[in-house]
């Protein structure tokens, strides 16, 4: 039974499973399905917080197969367009009065150049600014979302448009990962974002005095995470198993959306940096 469950999880969510994965609404009473996994996080500002689930090996294998098929199709298309280009180029070379200039030679598609959304992008999930679970008197929003069990990486604060455009920032140069398990609400803590002090130096005038030096030097980045444990749990969740996320250093991560690149502010006992080296203080591993 456990083996079957593990295999099902490793294969990733089906279309039916995906329908179950959604934010938990702010209602007086809460009914959660604890056969699933939940992630809880807070944010003092109404901004998106982006995470992605790390793909499992079966998902990677399936993706590679799809990618190989897409490459075959792209190559067939290129063969036709290249033959047409070559024909036109030959005519034009023979007599420029017989044909239009041939234009640039079509580039042969390769696995490296093939454009196809990566798995991490497919597995991206957003928390906020809509669909909050609670808001306290200080303005801090709590978000609770059912997710597919697995390992999650805090990726940044990114608005993704329907046309594929995106803006915001990623913590591509250093971040944290944690596991979300079925039967548990994994409390990530509080994620705070800041405006970029390089692009908008005037933001320093409005920053908290204790933050100014750090924002100016880069010691405080565009994203900070305060691990769970300092904030109480919503009483509506008292009947459920809420566990603080076990955070580990992670990254670097590709800038999939072409947004501003930053890294998560160092976290005592969890994450620090030696120049651009990412150091996991829970294991002394260096990324």
């Amino acid at each position, binding site marked *: 039974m456990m083996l079957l469950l593990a295999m099902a999880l490793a294969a990733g969510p089906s279309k039916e499973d995906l329908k179950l994965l959604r934010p938990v609404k702010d209602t007086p009473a809460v009914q959660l399905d604890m056969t699933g996994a939940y992630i809880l996080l807070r944010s003092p500002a109404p901004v998106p917080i982006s995470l992605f689930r790390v793909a499992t090996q079966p998902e990677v294998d399936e993706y590679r197969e799809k*990618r190989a098929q897409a490459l075959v199709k792209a190559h067939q298309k290129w063969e036709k367009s290249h033959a047409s280009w070559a024909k036109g180029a030959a005519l034009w070379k023979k007599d420029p009065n017989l044909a239009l200039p041939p234009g640039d030679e079509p580039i042969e598609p390769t696995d*490296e150049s093939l454009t196809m959304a990566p798995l991490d992008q497919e597995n991206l999930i957003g928390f906020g600014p809509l669909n909050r679970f609670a808001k306290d008197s200080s303005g801090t929003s709590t978000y609770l979302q059912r997710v597919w069990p697995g390992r999650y990486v805090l990726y940044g604060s990114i608005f993704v*448009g329907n046309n594929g455009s995106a803006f915001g920032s990623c913590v*591509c140069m250093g971040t944290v990962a944690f596991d979300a398990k079925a039967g548990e609400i994994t409390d990530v803590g509080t994620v705070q974002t800041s405006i970029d002090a*390089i692009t908008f130096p005037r933001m320093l005038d409005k920053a908290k005095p204790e933050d100014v030096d750090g924002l100016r030097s880069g010691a405080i980045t565009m994203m900070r995470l305060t691990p769970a444990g300092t904030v109480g749990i919503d009483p509506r969740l008292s009947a459920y198993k809420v566990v603080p996320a076990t955070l580990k250093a992670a990254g*670097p991560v590709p800038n999939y959306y*072409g947004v501003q690149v930053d890294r998560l502010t160092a976290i005592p006992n969890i994450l620090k940096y030696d120049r*651009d080296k990412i150091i996991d203080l829970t294991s002394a591993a260096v990324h």
Partner: protein
Amino acid sequence: MFKIMQPAAVLAALSVCAQAASAAPNVPDPASVEAPRIAGVTSAADEVDFDKYFYFHRAETTFDQALADIRECDGYARGLASPYGYQETPYPYAGTMAGAVGGAIGNLLVAAIFGSAELRKARRSNMRRCMNYKGYDRYGLNKDVWQGFNFEEGLSSVKEDERQRKLAIQAKVASLIQPDGKVLGR
């Protein structure tokens, strides 16, 4: 006022990105790389534009290391999904790439909405942030001298061979040429 990017311009820009998607370029012999004169070329009048025109330098750094760092930051700045210089990660990215074009697509779509100036500004900020994390100091430079070995990138991309030629000069400045002037913030 929003600017709408023409589909042809998007395709042309993506074509350049696709060219960039080939294997990482070779590391040139630093002796063969042009060495711009940076000492004594910048005046107090240039200071107002130091947020735009600058170069990086880090002591005790080899040319090869500086070039690897600059290429990696350049890759981040232009939104490549697999910037040159990326190291192995504990996650299975290798087989799950979008193609090296990656985020450059989203980048271009944003430029189509917000315009080229925002994209140029974002590139500068990304380079400054990334190189700062790698321990490089930033120095201001006269605009005309800066233009000799740097480039801006908005709606139009720089051809790959020209990009690599200029990145190599920047790496030489970052590693082998004595900086001039005061260290700026990141």
